[in-house]
């Protein structure tokens, strides 16, 4: 039973302990991890910075400091080469909220009533473009001033204020208005990570021979368009929109999906 949820448990523990470490950094002066998801210090000297926030700053006309660039480099290299879009499902606190909405949606069968979603998933790239456009014209990091992600993680560490509002709004929006509304359609941070995630080393791979076409994986996947190959081709999920949440691996009863380390040579032969 527990093996069916091992990645979920791992993810939740990772998300929560990360937030706890940030919280402890502020509340009790733990120096293991300080700051928040926008920018932090690991072990008191390794800078880690949000590359999307830095990009907005750059467009806004701020001079980027050396520390910031090192932090951006570390984070970007990690996600591009290994993690892909793992930020969204392993780190981001909003993920817990949108997963909860999704869970209720599935349990109550909302998805069966509302089969066609009224918005395109490409909207997020649009929002990403708009955020950079506004950053340029306003001379400010435009998304950072409205980001519910920042509101929530900053809120957990430094005090919430009306930040609970953001949580409730995203929960209700995802639940009643649009399936995967925030994370799958609007969030420009997710869109930003999607752009670089194609190249990462760890990918979910499908084995069509074992697949019995139950479609449980597509049902549970928050970005179900990335699983277009199910029951058709034995190829890895290469799309950058896959968040590597591993829910598809867990729900599969036929062992037809698994994490693999990418074999670049092999891929070329297949395609």
């Amino acid at each position: 039973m527990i093996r069916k949820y091992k990645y979920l448990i791992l993810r939740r523990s990772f998300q929560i302990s990360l937030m706890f470490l940030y919280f402890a950094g502020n509340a009790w002066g733990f120096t293991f991890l300080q700051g928040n998801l926008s920018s932090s210090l690991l072990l008191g000297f390794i800078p880690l910075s949000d590359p999307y926030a830095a990009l907005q700053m750059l467009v806004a006309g701020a001079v980027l400091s050396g520390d910031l660039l090192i932090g951006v480099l570390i984070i970007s290299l990690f996600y591009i080469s290994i993690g892909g879009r793992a930020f969204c499902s392993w780190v981001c606190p909003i993920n817990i909220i949108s997963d909860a909405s999704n869970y209720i949606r599935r349990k109550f069968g909302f998805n069966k009533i509302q089969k066609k979603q009224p918005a395109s998933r490409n909207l997020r790239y649009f929002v990403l473009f708009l955020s950079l456009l506004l950053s340029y014209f306003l001379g400010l990091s435009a998304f950072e001033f409205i980001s519910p992600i920042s509101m929530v993680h900053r809120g957990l560490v430094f005090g919430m204020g009306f930040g609970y509002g953001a949580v409730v709004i995203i929960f209700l929006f995802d639940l009643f208005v649009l399936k995967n509304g925030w994370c799958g359609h609007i969030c420009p941070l997710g869109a930003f990570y999607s752009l670089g995630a194609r190249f990462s080393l760890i990918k979910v791979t499908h084995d069509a021979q074992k697949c019995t076409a139950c479609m449980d994986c597509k049902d549970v996947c928050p970005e179900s368009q990335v699983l277009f190959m199910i029951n058709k081709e034995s190829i890895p999920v290469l799309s950058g929109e896959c968040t590597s949440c591993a829910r598809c691996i867990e729900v599969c009863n036929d062992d037809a999906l698994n994490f693999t380390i990418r074999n670049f040579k092999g891929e070329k032969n297949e395609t």
Partner: protein
Amino acid sequence: MEITRREFFLKSARSAGLLALGGLVWSAYVDEVTASKLILRPPGALKEKDFLAACIKCGLCVEACPYDTLLLAKPGDNKPLGTPYFIPRDIPCYMCPDIPCVPICPTNALDEKRVSSNGILDINTADMGLALIDESACIAFWGIQCDACHSACPLLNEAITLEYKKNDRTGKHAFIVPVVHADVCTGCGLCERACITQKASIFVLPRELVTGRAGDHYIKSWNKKDEKRLKNAREINTKTKISNRPAIDSLNDMKGLLDD
């Protein structure tokens, strides 16, 4: 899937409309939320506009502050979201000599150069704001002896001095009143914290908000150094309808002044 020309135009128009609508609401909100000028920043902060562009809102300065002076703006504080500020009446800046909040800033939104003299950190050069005194509420101006702000000032007798004046109301008593020296005051707010009146009668405001500028046309007399500023002064020529004629003609012209 092929799309017809009609669909293409419709789709483009829809995208453009969405972009305009989203951009308008978004920029209006951000513009509004960053318009608040009444906010005191940590020492070494860049000018407000540059600061807002450079601050990544990580809160490392807030964590570094040993007195819990600094706060990060939360939703509902009506301040630019996630940026650091302080409220001196609650907790002022205690002006640590090593200024822990500044070097830790990853983006140099808090700039060491702005709080250094000769390359060494020097908190006395900080400029977080400027203390002002409401002379109608400060009891020292009523003739009651109080020097709470003066003795709380970390730059005692430099940023705040006490001045003696004759009390004309009683005729035989003295006023001992505090005077803030704008060129020395760092805006730490220890005076505001110490003020004994119900609502502080000495308070810190952002310097840009409460200082004037005489311009280069006016200089202090018999002051060689100040006279140099005159070089920067540029001629200002105002042209109106009257300037078309010599001044004397204009003055002698009775037309329009007399009833006929």
